[in-house]
């Protein structure tokens, strides 16, 4: 019953302000938990029993998409490219407040790099009518490449707006957007046109926890799978074959040689003097 009411409201707001609502796609990736012990076994990366989570950067993207929908009306569509397990990441996005979710999954997509992933995502986004905004997290914590958003923007030909810390204004009717981007030297404010592809940084918001109703909705919502054929890509264009980058080797981190030497003394001044001597000897100051 609660569910029916929620759906009715969404449909109402959608039709009422059809002129100026926002259709937002949020692209999420499922990654190992940040605290997972990641290892290499037989040349493959494993994380044991550690849970898989929504890439932490992508949670900010989901939150921002939902906030924009709450402000402007419209809907949020979550997309994830990955194996069947990535369905769980999509469920979380729905539980937070996304309206629909699609899993782009196909054995031929395995091993896709920035080039191949952006191709598949752009094709999947192209299946959805009237998209105004696509949101990404700044980067994924497994690959840490941070270029999927920009490459997807290039493929779609939409305004690329990366490292966004604030969406200051958005006018769905005028098709304009104003954002603040957090760059090395400070904060750049830019205006641009919709549709736009945005990657967000952490400062933009604080992601909400899934609500009870959201979790119920997520457990009931059908999440369709889109295969490579469904989105219109051929095997050679995606996956390892469609990637520009190969990973011949992946290794554990060399153990840090440092064994901590504790510096002690009778007073803070004595500790400071001893430590300063050591840092001077190491030639780091």
């Amino acid at each position: 019953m609660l569910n029916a009411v929620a759906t009715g409201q969404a449909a109402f707001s959608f039709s009422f302000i059809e002129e100026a609502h926002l259709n937002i796609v949020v692209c999420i990736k499922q990654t190992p938990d940040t605290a997972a012990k990641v290892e290499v076994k037989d040349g493959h990366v494993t994380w044991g029993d550690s849970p898989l989570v929504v890439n932490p950067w992508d949670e900010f993207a989901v939150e921002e998409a939902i906030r924009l929908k709450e402000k402007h009306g419209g809907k949020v569509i979550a997309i994830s490219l990955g194996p069947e397990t990535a369905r769980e990441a999509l469920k979380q996005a729905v539980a937070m407040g996304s309206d629909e979710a699609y899993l782009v999954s196909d054995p031929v997509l395995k091993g896709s790099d920035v080039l191949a992933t952006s191709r598949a995502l752009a094709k999947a986004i192209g299946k959805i009518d009237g998209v105004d905004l696509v949101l990404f997290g700044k980067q994924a914590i497994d690959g840490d490449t941070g270029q999927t958003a920009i490459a997807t923007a290039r493929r779609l030909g939409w305004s690329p707006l990366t490292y966004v810390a604030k969406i200051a204004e958005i006018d769905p009717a005028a098709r304009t957007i104003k954002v603040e981007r957090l760059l090395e030297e400070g904060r750049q404010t830019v205006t641009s046109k919709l549709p736009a592809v945005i990657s967000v940084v952490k400062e933009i918001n604080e992601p909400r926890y899934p609500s009870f109703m959201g979790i119920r909705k997520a457990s009931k919502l059908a999440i369709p799978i889109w295969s490579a054929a469904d989105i219109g890509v051929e095997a050679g264009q995606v996956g390892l074959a469609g990637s520009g980058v190969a990973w011949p080797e992946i290794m554990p981190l060399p153990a840090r040689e440092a064994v901590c030497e504790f510096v002690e003394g009778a007073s803070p001044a004595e500790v400071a003097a001893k430590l300063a001597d050591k840092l001077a000897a190491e030639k780091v100051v």
Partner: protein
Amino acid sequence: MTNSVWVYVDQFKGAALPASWETLGAAKKLAGELGTGVTAIVLGHNVEGIAKETFYYGADAVTLCDDATLADFRVRPYAAVLAKLADDAKPQVVLGPATTRARDVFGFVAVDFESGTISDATALALKDGAAYVTRPVYAGKLIGTAVCKDRRPQLITLRPRAFPKPEPDASRSGEINNVPAVLKEDEIATKVVDYAIEEGKVSLTDAKIIVSGGRGVGGPEGFAPVRALAETLGGALGASRAAVDAGWIPYSHQVGQTGKTVSPDLYVACGISGAIQHQAGMRTAKLIVAINKDKEAPIFKLARYGVVGDLFQIVPALTAEFKKRLGK
């Protein structure tokens, strides 16, 4: 002569980033092994000075696009010039520093050429004519080797401070090849309306020394002694996620998995326990010093030197000691 190794010289407001010169040094080495030279690509407005400077740092040729549309960085007009040049001259490798700008430009150009792009290299090795890139993955928990297979150009960004900066030689010079911009202003949808620059601060990614505070600083005012030590050492001020999330210091200072990745010569962690997420951002520091009340804190497993004690006593004492030694 056509050089098959290029460097995208990243600049901000008419000054090249130090990481651009580190990239030029790495490119020079690669070009030497390939038996070719290095062409520096300088894009911007009123940046002819940078074009000349690239010769000091080892460029053999410079292509300069100096245009009003490039005054503020925007990815489309910048990438359009690089793509046009690369289409004409077909370089094998384009290197750039792993800044927000170069990552965006290379992501764009990779799509244009359907070629490979690799971010954040910490080492480069040449094998069978291809650049094999060493880079951390899984938040620095693993090290991977990546290579652009058969597609060209190879578009690779290098992590700042991972490669040595060459000594400049001001006697070097050469011919500057001027090229026009590709896009006109009315073809560029994105307009820069403001840039609030954080003045007087040492950038975390370029810093040789970083002093960071965590939960142990206890509040916004607790950063005062940490900041004082950073300033005395000429370093940058960092923070853990706990301190940022508590609202004690802006996000731009955050080091770690959801913040910045840094590689200073010296990293001083004050009141930071050293959660795995924090380690992801600073474990490549050359030398780590930890000051923490808790001897069991994980940060001491990374640290070369540790002090178990109250940071509010130790950090001011260190500041005083270095002021004395550095004559400040």
